[in-house]
């Protein structure tokens, strides 16, 4: 014990790089955003005036904000569930493969290494109304694809691109979760008259619930915040705001509209919203997580 006391500073010293990064890139900007949310500032940063809650009342009073909220809910639920369901399917399939398993796994993990903007551009090229390969196939099948004009198709595009991007992350966790389930449990279930489908739903799926819960939280956060790059590179919130999610609106109002006060207020609201969502998930869903 005595030796530890003498080195009381060492742990802090070792932690300091990480703490500094968190402080400078997370706490400081978040703190600044909270301050900013109570001021109105001119676009060039030359002067600002304290307006108390006016930014918030303005945001919460605009129909546009609720439209973005609705878009975000549709988008986030589709992305989180879609990315998890597809990743689980792929993980179950990859877990069964014996020959060349390593190759499949590597290929399935790869998309995670692609930057969101690059992933977005990739999808834009494939589905470009004029040049896109996939949109040409769709055209041949009688589907007129144009996400630059059709809001629903634009939404489908950003959802697909975002799912594709996140699937690898989920895949890794699901695969690890599947491999952590003792084989003897599934063998016991097979002897206990459970067919493959039943085994999956009564044994594998419940035993994956800690993984699924963790991924649900991570995917919600991803869908809310980290899909900005993908949306910006594909539809830029358009057409006509059809893919303008809350995080995209924060960016648009702040960096394009130069309404820094409103943008800051929105980001504070978004922070609270995601915080609340995560809290709810922990409070109500974690209790159902098995063992």
């Amino acid at each position, binding site marked *: 014990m005595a030796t530890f006391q003498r080195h009381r500073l060492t742990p802090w010293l070792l932690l300091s790089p990480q703490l500094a990064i968190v402080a400078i890139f997370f706490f400081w900007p978040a703190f600044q955003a909270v301050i900013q949310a109570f001021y109105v500032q001119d676009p060039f940063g030359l002067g600002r005036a304290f307006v108390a809650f006016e930014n918030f009342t303005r945001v919460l009073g605009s129909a546009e904000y609720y439209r973005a909220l609705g878009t975000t809910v549709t988008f986030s639920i589709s992305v989180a569930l879609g990315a998890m369901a597809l990743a689980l399917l792929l993980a179950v399939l990859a877990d069964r493969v014996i020959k060349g398993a390593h190759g499949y796994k590597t290929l399935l993990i790869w998309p995670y290494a692609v930057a969101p903007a690059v992933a977005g551009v990739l999808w834009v090229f494939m589905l470009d109304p004029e040049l896109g390969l996939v949109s040409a196939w769709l055209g041949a099948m009688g589907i007129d694809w144009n996400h630059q004009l059709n809001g629903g198709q634009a939404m489908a595009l950003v959802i697909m691109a975002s799912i594709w991007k996140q699937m690898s992350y989920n895949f890794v966790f699901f695969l690890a979760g599947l491999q952590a389930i003792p084989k003897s449990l599934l063998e016991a279930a097979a*002897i206990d008259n459970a067919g493959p489908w039943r085994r999956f739903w009564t044994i594998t799926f419940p035993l994956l619930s800690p993984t699924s819960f963790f991924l649900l939280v991570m995917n919600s956060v991803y869908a809310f915040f980290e899909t900005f790059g993908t949306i910006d590179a594909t539809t830029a919130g358009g057409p006509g705001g059809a893919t303008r999610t809350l995080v995209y609106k924060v960016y648009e109002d702040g960096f394009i509209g130069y309404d820094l006060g409103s943008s800051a207020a929105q980001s504070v609201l978004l922070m609270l919203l995601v915080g609340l969502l995560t809290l709810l998930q922990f409070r109500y869903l974690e209790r159902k997580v098995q063992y």
Partner: protein
Amino acid sequence: MATLSLDALSKTYPNGVTALHGVDLIIDDGELVVVVGPSGCGKSTLLRMLAGLESISSGELAIDGRRVNDLEPAQRDIAMVFQNYALYPHMSVADNMGYALKNQGVPRAERRRKVEETARLIGLEDLLDRRPKQLSGGQRQRVAMGRAIVREPKVFLFDEPLSNLDAKLRVQMRIEIRRLQKRLGVTAVYVTHDQVEAMTLADRLVVMNGGHIEQVGTPMHLYDQPASRFVASFIGSPSMNFIEARHADGVLTLPCGTHLPLRDGSPAEIGDAVCLGVRPEHLVQVSHSDDTTLVTEVELVEPLGADTLAHVRLDGQAELLVARLDGAQHIAEGERLYLRPDPERLHLFDPQEGHRLAAPETAS
């Protein structure tokens, strides 16, 4: 209730490794057969093939005369107790036990009744609502047993079910398994590497080595008439002593100079060189040395209470011999000990092949 018949059952893995070379065995209705052998002998593979968890490469497996080679585990009407118990961690004890019944479509009320009945039988009534992780090792073992019993299967399969328990509990559960199996009268196959467990549980013992069956018989038959040097060394604890000896005209000559006359003269197939086997409990201590005694020096003494094991050195013998002596007697290390092999209890094996040479008469 069922008979099991194994006809030239073999297992070859896709990588070319053969784990089982043509196993033949008939298991009678209500019989408890214990398969014993060192790790890697194929005993677990054999059990998993019976369960349907491993495919059968060649040969035929029949339950009650019906070929089941290609049936799924669920369709074979067997229950298995796993080494790690394989309890479903997210289900209560009652749900664990009722899982198979539920899958079979047994109505809830009947399921509940059967689970409770079985729980009473094995003393789990008070634990039905617990999760497996809230149970001790012994209780988990009981649940695993209960899960097998509640289904009333044709055959029980046990895969080293006691190996994760402490020594005292193991003895207790061993007795309980034996009692339950007799009471329910269900055919059972029990795999273990523990020869004490094997001896005490088995109606019949199957000793396996390198994917072959070495010998099948009652525990006492295997103890008295081991068919090979391998079986002789595997059954009985401590293990049988082996001494390389020369043979001429019905008399064995040991490297130390001792002469042992064979009781029934020379068996026909016996050659010049033989391997003599004597169990530790068949080395009798005598007070004086003569032509038929082994003159040994005590190197290590293990008092067990009732018995004392003396590890002794014999001239011309690389390995120490073990003698099981009366525990009341004091033996010191370094002491000289005269031992006479019981002439009724000598075993002769082929020095190369290890198979039993037509034996001197033994009590059976």
